[in-house]
């Protein structure tokens, strides 16, 4: 009749009296050193990106530096940071290792907005029309997304709303392409959708930076809610986390951070998907631990990819620069296969 004879180590232990308060989160020191390394990497890439032009390593004159390389470098860092962070947040919020900012359809509607500008040839009269069109497209897409998802969405309802917005923007984009007024508009739209950072100006930076930074500020605050959500929406609610509000903020922050990025850089896929997966082996899988690191790693990845685009003509016989979105997709696609095979899918 012995109640304590199982020897399995489960026993009530009285709480320790006046336990020393060690306020340390698991792996905190490691997280900090990874963040430091990533910060240094981003700084190095920023400098290299300013130094390297299209295949030429030389100190440029002031004009080239300010008008061409600085906007390009700043945009690569901003867009990459927004994509990396929103990817980490969405994977955490939706509890899905295959989630990507493109899933919500906002990057698609940003592309549609830009396509509309090309369609009417507005950019020829007013240079900032293109990024403004992209931003307007992202804003309209975000409005539709939040309206479709409702006030307190669950993960699946948010994904369904994103699929609806994606389908809508894809069909309208196909319509714009098929009705394109001339072959040049068609070519311009298609090439822009491939994504790139060449020929961007400080106006692009000024237009994209505020929404991206606002989105980043919203997304960085979601950490504890995402941690709770890893136990499911019901358990997160029992821990006092407002689940619907967290998902709405994740979608809004993604719309700002990734949507504004797509508005100035076109479709750059796979960065948001891949970055959190690159970091999990280093930092563990706790969603909140990945957020700041994904921001930095996204910036580093896009800076590096854009550098590769600029260096590629030196080694490959290319008559045109390689589109940035093509490069990230070429490198990202095999990576997704590896993730899908390795990750224990739910």
């Amino acid at each position, binding site marked *: 009749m012995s109640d304590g004879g199982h020897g399995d180590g*489960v026993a009530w232990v009285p709480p320790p009296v006046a336990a020393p308060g060690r306020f340390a989160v698991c792996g905190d020191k490691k997280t900090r050193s990874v963040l430091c390394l990533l910060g240094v990497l981003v700084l190095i890439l920023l400098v290299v990106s300013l130094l390297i032009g299209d295949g030429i390593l030389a100190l440029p004159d002031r004009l080239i530096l300010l008008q061409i390389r600085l906007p390009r470098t700043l945009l690569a860092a901003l867009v990459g940071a927004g994509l990396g962070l929103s990817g980490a947040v969405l994977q955490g919020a939706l509890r899905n290792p295959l989630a990507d900012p493109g899933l919500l359809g906002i990057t698609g509607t940003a592309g549609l907005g830009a396509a509309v500008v090309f369609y009417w040839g507005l950019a020829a009269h007013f240079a900032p029309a293109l990024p403004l069109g992209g931003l307007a497209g992202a804003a309209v897409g975000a409005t539709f997304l939040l309206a479709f998802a409702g006030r307190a969405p669950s993960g699946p309802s948010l994904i369904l709303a994103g699929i609806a917005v994606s389908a809508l923007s894809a069909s309208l984009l196909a319509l714009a392409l098929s009705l394109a007024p001339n072959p040049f508009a068609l070519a311009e739209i298609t090439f822009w959708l491939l994504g790139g950072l060449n020929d961007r100006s400080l106006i692009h930076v000024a237009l994209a930076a505020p929404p991206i930074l606002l989105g980043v500020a919203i997304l960085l605050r979601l950490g504890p809610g995402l941690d709770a959500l890893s136990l499911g929406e019901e358990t997160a609610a029992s821990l006092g986390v407002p689940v619907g509000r967290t998902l709405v903020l994740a979608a809004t922050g993604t719309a700002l951070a990734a949507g504004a990025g797509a508005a100035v850089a076109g479709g750059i896929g796979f960065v948001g998907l891949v970055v959190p997966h690159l970091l999990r082996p280093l930092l563990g899988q706790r969603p909140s631990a990945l957020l700041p690191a994904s921001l930095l790693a996204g910036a580093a990845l896009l800076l590096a990819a854009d550098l590769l685009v600029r260096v590629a003509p030196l080694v490959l016989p290319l008559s045109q620069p390689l589109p940035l979105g093509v490069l990230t997709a070429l490198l990202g696609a095999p990576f997704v296969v590896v993730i899908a095979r390795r990750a224990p899918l739910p």
Partner: protein
Amino acid sequence: MTWSLSLPVLSLNSHPVLHDIALTLRRGELVAICGPNGAGKTTLLRALAGLLPGTPPRDPRRVAYLAQGARCAWALTVGQVAALGRIPHRDAADAPVTHALQSCGILPLRDRRVDRISGGEARRAMLARAFATEPDLFLLDEPTADLDPATAQAIMRLLRSTAEAGRTAVVVQHAVDLAIRYAHRIIVLQSGHIAADLPARDALPALAAAFGLPFGVDPEPRLLSRDDCDLSP
């Protein structure tokens, strides 16, 4: 300190699931909710946790809820899972987490990933998350499902001693033998209403009626655990 719930009727998707619910949970007691599948046990537990529309909201610092078959979407470490229990307190206090891991017997597994330990150990990690909150009221949906008999008994023993140390614990329990043996009180739920609310030692006839099985009468099949059978000469 008592916790009470009074629900004339509770509907989910305009379908009544619970009716005429009135119960009070007292400090120091381990309460088992038993009943056939579909009787509304999980719904009653969610209602007690204030997770359903129309139920009184609870302070997440004082109430810990463990969902049926709860699992973690990401491969966190055991220590990280337990630390999630501190989210309602908005702190990263280490002492309650360590203590919770120790109580659940998984302190040595603290840095192991939850996808690389056994199912029973993962279940205890989830339980440690509830303990780390240091709540006054535990609401646990089948905390011993798919655990081996020794571990299941150890968990029930832990919950009983936790309750007796001044908390309140409610478990949905399919293992009638564990409920009778460890709970102070058994609530028998049938078709969405409370069919019986009795001290555990008197609950056998009500349970037999609810399940339509002759518990405690037939020696076969053996539903009581070995320790409950007096084998002494």
